[in-house]
């Protein structure tokens, strides 16, 4: 029964481990430097958005070895590198502590910044 592992699963798994490690290290690294830990997560997510836009458009314009490269880099690496759960948990914490300005900045900044980063990535990659 090698079926679940022989196809893309290995690529997804190999991409996921360094993605999660890098997120863990980057967020921990910025924790003492930034006033709030959530700006580390914010930065990680924005970088991932730019990278996925670039990757998808390069795949479209240059035909990178499609399926498996995308599984390794997009689904595995960037999917694990960026995170939704920690972002929402941190957003919830700012709301809980009545830091309304911080919550609006974190929420609006992530969504608008994320969209901008994806668009920039797509444009640079030529689509």
């Amino acid at each position, binding site marked *: 029964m090698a079926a679940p592992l022989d196809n893309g699963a290995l690529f997804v798994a190999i991409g*996921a481990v360094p993605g999660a490690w890098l997120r863990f290290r980057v967020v921990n690294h910025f924790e003492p430097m930034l006033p709030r830990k959530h700006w580390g997560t914010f930065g990680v997510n924005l970088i991932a958005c730019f990278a996925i836009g670039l990757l998808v458009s390069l795949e479209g314009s240059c035909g990178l070895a499609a399926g498996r490269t995308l599984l390794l880099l997009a689904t595995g690496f960037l*999917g694990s*590198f960026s995170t939704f*759960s920690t972002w929402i948990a941190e957003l919830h914490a700012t709301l809980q502590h009545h830091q309304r300005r911080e919550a609006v900045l974190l929420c609006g900044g992530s969504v608008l910044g994320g969209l901008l980063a994806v668009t920039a990535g797509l444009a640079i990659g030529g689509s």
Partner: protein
Amino acid sequence: MAPSPTESPPSLRREARDLLLVAAGAVPGALLRWRLEDVGKGLEGVPTGLIEADLVANLLGTFLIGVIVGRHPPRPRLLLLGGIGFCGSLTTFSSWMLEISLALRRGRPDEALAVVLVSLLGGLAVVTLGLAVGRRLGRSRLRR
């Protein structure tokens, strides 16, 4: 003072243990997200299905991180394995933004806005629920 050889290995070992815990959570998290995407594609055959599948992974992971963070006293190893590793990898921000951007490019701002709002409000709702469940689990453990 030079670090004595007996002092440095434990911190290195702790570092290795932390990374191992994160990796052990990240692999099943990413695989589950990928499987959920496939289920979505099979059901719909259109990008909307993919959007919905990402939503399922994101909401599931957000609920679980609430349960983990809500535990009291905090559980550092569970946080590394389940929170940073599993939930962090199960959920994704980049694909979510990509899908929203693609919806906008298709000339469907309504669809893009719906994906933003459902994910955001749904996420805040499930993390609140998760935190409540986590706190309750912590209390029942203390009573024992």
